[in-house]
């Protein structure tokens, strides 16, 4: 059943260019959204019960015939599957309205579906090398999607993104090659077992550094972040939402966490490096965001900053820290997607992304303004919205782990976040309405619907956060909390 997560989007992606000949808009719109809705429902109804007794390994089947594909599902992968399905469904709905003027919708959806299939595959694989393959699959699709508008900015951003990503992949692959040579395998279980019997600390140190650089670049941790402020703003808004909301987390944070916590085991050295990188990212991202005039670029820098929180939380390594980090990851997927979608709506209506030129848009675009305020308050950590709780958990975890300096810095970072989001809201939506935008209309229905859903989710998760934590996040944190034991248990398969 889990194989459906990969094969459904992939098959649909193969079919869409053909179907696109029949129907330029309706069929692609309908099929893509339906597929995503199917996966979302499947996650909630079908996949969740599977892990009630901890992680499972499932053999993939093709029309009842078993394949030699083993898919690994535990709480952590499930959380990522859920996040991917949720955000991509919303993004598909949003694209119905937004992608009209780009043309080539079938091609667009096909690429998006390949990217989703790649992310799903990455999350479900129990093998370092397979992680690399699916990471590349999602990445190749994302290069094309960033460049989809084919303007000079888009192309330049996609090119730099590709060139830096290729180097990151090389680092990852080099590390995999070394581990493969030493342990004789690339599966999580084999590698974890091998490292346990061999006790090669220096080598693991080098491999950790390579993985950290490789996945860190995908996750846009400072100093590996430089492609993100170019690529995310240049992409079409739904893709920005997808990249910032999910891709950097799946191919960066998920892969990194899986390898470090699940295969290598978190060492004090790694904790130090990860937490320091997290805090540096928080500050560099936040400070750079203050000075931005392009709304999407500001959001992109903010992504760097928020990923810093996620890595900071996970890097602490205590159960509460991991829980906080994962919760922030999930929340960030919600509100950053929301904010990017809002920015897209504003850009489509006004034709500009420059904050200087906006102002008073709340009067003409009330839905967008309200949802965007919700998103901004969430991301800035204002209670009782979801971002507050996850940041609170991270800060409590830092205090518990006696990392008081980092805790203070994390709070300070949050203050800066509030600062630039207030600036953003003020410049874009409040104040005097710019004369030029008198005749601006609210975004089309599907776009507004997508943003409203996300905004409601932000509020709901904030209010019902104990429920969300209990259902989706605690299993994930538990799975990670067991460290390498999970991988070792699966070695028999």
């Amino acid at each position: 059943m889990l194989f459906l997560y990969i094969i459904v989007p992939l098959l649909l992606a193969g079919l869409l260019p053909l179907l696109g000949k029949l129907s330029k808009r309706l069929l692609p719109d309908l099929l893509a959204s339906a597929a995503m809705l199917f996966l979302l429902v499947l996650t909630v109804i079908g996949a969740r019960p599977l892990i009630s007794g901890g992680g499972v390994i499932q053999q993939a089947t093709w029309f009842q015939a078993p394949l030699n594909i083993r898919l690994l599902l535990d709480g952590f992968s499930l959380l990522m599957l859920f996040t991917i399905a949720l955000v991509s469904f919303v993004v598909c709905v949003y694209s119905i309205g937004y992608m009209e003027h780009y043309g080539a919708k079938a091609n667009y959806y096909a690429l998006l579906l390949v990217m989703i299939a790649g992310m799903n595959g990455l999350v479900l694989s129990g093998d370092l090398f397979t992680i690399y393959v699916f990471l590349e699959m999602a990445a190749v699709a994302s290069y094309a999607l960033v460049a989809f508008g084919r303007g000079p900015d888009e192309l330049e951003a996609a090119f730099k993104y590709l060139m830096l990503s290729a180097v990151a992949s090389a680092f990852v692959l080099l590390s995999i090659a070394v581990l493969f040579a030493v342990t004789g395998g690339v599966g999580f279980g084999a590698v974890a077992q091998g490292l346990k019997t061999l006790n090669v600390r220096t080598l693991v140190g080098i491999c950790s550094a390579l993985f950290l650089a490789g996945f860190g670049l995908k996750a846009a941790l400072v100093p590996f972040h430089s492609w993100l402020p170019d690529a995310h703003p240049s992409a079409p808004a739904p893709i920005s939402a997808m990249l910032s909301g999910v891709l950097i987390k799946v191919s960066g944070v998920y892969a990194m966490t899986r390898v470090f916590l699940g295969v290598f085991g978190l060492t004090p050295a790694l904790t130090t490096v990860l937490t320091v990188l997290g805090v540096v990212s928080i500050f560099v991202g936040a400070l750079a965001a203050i000075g931005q005039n392009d709304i999407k670029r500001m959001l992109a820098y903010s992504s760097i900053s928020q990923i810093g929180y996620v890595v900071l939380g996970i890097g602490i390594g205590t159960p509460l820290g991991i829980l906080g980090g994962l919760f922030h990851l999930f929340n960030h997927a919600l509100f950053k997607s929301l904010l990017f979608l809002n920015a897209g709506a504003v850009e489509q209506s006004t034709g500009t992304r420059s904050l200087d030129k906006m102002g008073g848009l709340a009067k003409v675009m009330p839905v967008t303004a309200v949802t965007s305020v919700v998103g901004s308050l969430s991301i800035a950590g204002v209670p009782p919205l979801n971002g507050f709780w996850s940041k609170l958990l991270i800060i409590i975890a830092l205090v518990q782990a006696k990392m008081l300096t980092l805790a203070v810095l994390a709070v300070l970072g949050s203050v800066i976040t509030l600062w630039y989001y207030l600036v953003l809201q003020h410049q874009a939506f409040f104040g005097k309405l710019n004369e030029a935008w008198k005749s601006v209309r609210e975004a089309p229905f599907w776009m507004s619907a997508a943003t409203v859903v996300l905004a409601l989710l932000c509020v709901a998760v904030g209010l019902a956060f104990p429920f969300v934590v209990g259902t989706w996040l605690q299993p994930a944190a538990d799975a990670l909390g067991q460290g390498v034991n999970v991988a070792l248990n699966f070695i028999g398969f």
Partner: protein
Amino acid sequence: MHLFLLIGLVAFSAVAILCRELLKSAISLAVASIFLALLLFEMGAVYAGVFELSVVAGLITVLFITAIALTRGDGDVAEGRAQRWVFPLFFLALAVVDVLVMRRLLGRIPAIQGSESGGFSQVLWNQRTFDLVGQVGVISAGVLAVLALFRREGGHGKGEGHE
């Protein structure tokens, strides 16, 4: 023999990088590929060698040459001279560091003997099936990407007014 092939591989790679003309670069890259393929043969990795020969030395070279042809005329970018003169120094430094590190590794790294059985296709089909799915995905991503980037309709230069 092995060492000779390795040196050849690195040498042609370096030439590919330092060459002024793109066409020559692409060709020496193909030659480096052939060296790598021979290396793989020598190590017993026949299938990988064939693949390297046909795909990298063949297909990728063709891709490069096509791209060079499509951008010719305005593709003459003046590389600074400094890069070429610094390269030997850089290379030497890199080699020294590399040798030092590898000497430390020599004999220090324990390893587990592999325990695989069966022929290549069996291994590929039985153990790495998931990678095959991934390959299909990556290829389709690449095809779709090229289709998207060379499509006729749509495509607007949003960034054009954004100086």
